[in-house]
């Protein structure tokens, strides 16, 4: 589904990603861990098409197509979804209106009819139920004045409504209380399907107790220095990232 080969990217001449290789197949869950500033969010943003970053080398294939040649909206329409580490506030636009606009943009691309407000409410209600939330945030402007945890939950709600094929969750677990963490994990697990894939960026092994990854990767200094199964997360929890960096030097 996703094949990243020797990806180099940066901002204004400063290289942040220094040769990433990563393959994600359908049905898989990958976890990416790594110290602050190692390039996790940069990788996620580059995959989503953020114009700030320039790709200087390498390639990314998504369902066999050149992902890097697509506009951000095209990537989303093709089923890629990024849950932002720092969700953005949208002045004056209610959450419900925003969700409907996004869903309709994607439906239009799929050749489906756009949903009117009433039909959309039906879809929304169903998704809210899956996630176990009420509609109290729906008539407030997107992320405006939302608490940290509410913003993260809202990213998951968007994911549920948009039904992506490949979801990248950038520290969606950070700042969540334990109940919210379980709800988010539950939402991810509910949406999990053999045709989909998920990449979770996280600092905590905690989340991985609820979302069991098939692979864990350690990103340091803009490269994936180590990959393994879910046990790797435990080891990282016990030994810290220095251990990976040290190991990398010896190897």
């Amino acid at each position, binding site marked *: 589904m996703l094949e990243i080969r020797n990806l180099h990217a940066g901002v204004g001449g400063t290289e942040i990603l220094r040769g990433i290789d990563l393959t994600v197949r359908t049905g898989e869950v990958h976890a990416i861990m790594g110290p602050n500033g190692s390039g996790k969010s940069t990788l996620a943003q580059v995959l989503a098409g953020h*114009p700030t970053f320039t790709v200087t080398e390498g390639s990314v294939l998504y369902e066999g197509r050149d992902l890097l040649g697509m506009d951000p909206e095209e990537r989303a329409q093709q089923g890629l979804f990024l849950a932002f580490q720092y*969700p953005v506030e949208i002045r*004056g*636009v209610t959450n419900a209106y925003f969700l409907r*606009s*996004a869903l309709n943009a994607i439906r239009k691309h799929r050749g489906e009819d756009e949903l009117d407000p009433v039909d959309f409410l039906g879809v929304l209600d169903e998704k809210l139920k899956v996630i176990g939330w009420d509609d109290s945030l729906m008539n407030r402007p997107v992320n405006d004045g939302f608490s940290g945890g509410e913003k993260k939950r809202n990213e998951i709600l968007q994911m549920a409504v*948009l039904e992506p094929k490949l979801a990248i969750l950038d520290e969606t677990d950070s700042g969540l209380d334990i109940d919210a963490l379980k709800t988010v994990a539950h939402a991810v697990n509910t949406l999990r399907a053999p045709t989909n894939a998920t990449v979770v960026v996280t600092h905590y092994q905690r989340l991985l107790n609820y979302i069991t990854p098939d692979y864990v990767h350690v990103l340091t200094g803009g490269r994936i220095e180590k990959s393994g199964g879910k046990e790797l997360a435990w080891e990282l929890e016990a030994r810290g990232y220095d251990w990976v960096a040290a190991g990398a030097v010896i190897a």
Partner: protein
Amino acid sequence: MTPEAADVLAAAPDARARYVREFEASAGNGAGQTPAWLRAVREGAIARFAEVGFPTMRQEEWRFTSVRPIADTVFRRADEPVPSGALATAMAPYLLCEADRHRAVFVNGHFVAALSSLAGLPEGVTVGNLAAALGGEADVVQQHLARYARPAAGPFSALNAAFLLDGAFVFVPEGVDVEEPVQVLFLSSPSREPIVSHPRTLVVVERGARASIVESYAGVGEGVYWTNAVTEVVVGDGARADCYRVQRESGTAYHVATTHTHQGRDSVVWFHLVALGAALARHDIVSVLDGSGGLCTLNGLYLLGGQQHADHHTTIDHAQPHCESHEYFNGVLDGQSHGVFNGRIIVRPGAQRTDAKQTNNNLVLSGEARADSQPQLEIYADDVRCTHGATLGPLDERALFYLRSRGMSADAARSLLSYGFGAEILGRMDIAPLRAQLDRLVRARLQRESRRENVP
């Protein structure tokens, strides 16, 4: 020649003299029916205008706005229109559909009974025209008319008072709640020659009463015209007035207006305004909190494109203690348009525990559009809270990417973000059919703007 130097020519005495001559020529008209006090108001007003003339950009209050196009144009006051099917069709888009039982319609400044609907008003409530009220409620009119928006306050309110013939009158007696909104529609329908009207509105909501008033200004056809409006809203102790004002003048129009609200003790005023039209618009809003415990909210939106120029000058006058004011103004500026916001807050000596907030957010969509925003705080009491904030800038790139990452095209994302600036203001409005109508207008307008903006 600099714009300022060119503008000074607008003060040329012939423009001023033209209006004085016109006043003198028409002074005999209707003099028979006009009460003496009103004649005195008019005469005082023209004398005032003769003294000051049209403003120039050298005056602090007018430094961003040149009224030269108005001073240079010879306007004629239009004759009374003949009610027609064409007029009825023309006014239809401006009506409040589901809430349209109480409306007074004026065409070129003249009341048109045939287009108005004054059905189902609660007992004691008057909605109609001032000329008629001078017969019935003469004392109420005399007590309030031109007492708040005084002719001496500025050249345009002076001109309005000098040529005051008729206007809208809304009277809600003590304790009465008018549930359905009252609409006052001022249509201009110019022919070949430029015309001017000086619409006047007086709204009196007595002690403990409650009403919603929707004031709309619009133009029919292509011709040049000038609307010089003055509105006075008097709100008694414990009363509440929800005022809406929709300015949809045609693109060749000039719109100058003063709105003056005057509030008693524990009263509430919400003043919502949306300015979409006119080539050149200037609106002065003065809200006086003249009794303790009053609450006043100004909630305004201006959407400008092309060569449009709109200047909003607001003054919130905290004359008494324990009052609260909120001011929200958003502007969306495209093309080569120019938006001006000047927000003055006065806290008078003794107006302790004043709580005043002001925000002005401008979204500047094009490199050639311009926004000017300035707060002006004059605080003469010590126990007060006054905050103000202004933003000015292009669309937020982070927000743009966020929306695109959710599948929206760059165009759709731009128009949604611009729409948000409007929706934030419209969201505070209570009259659902009006809000929906404005929402459609704003959305259509911004979709168009963003598409145009995207053309390389």
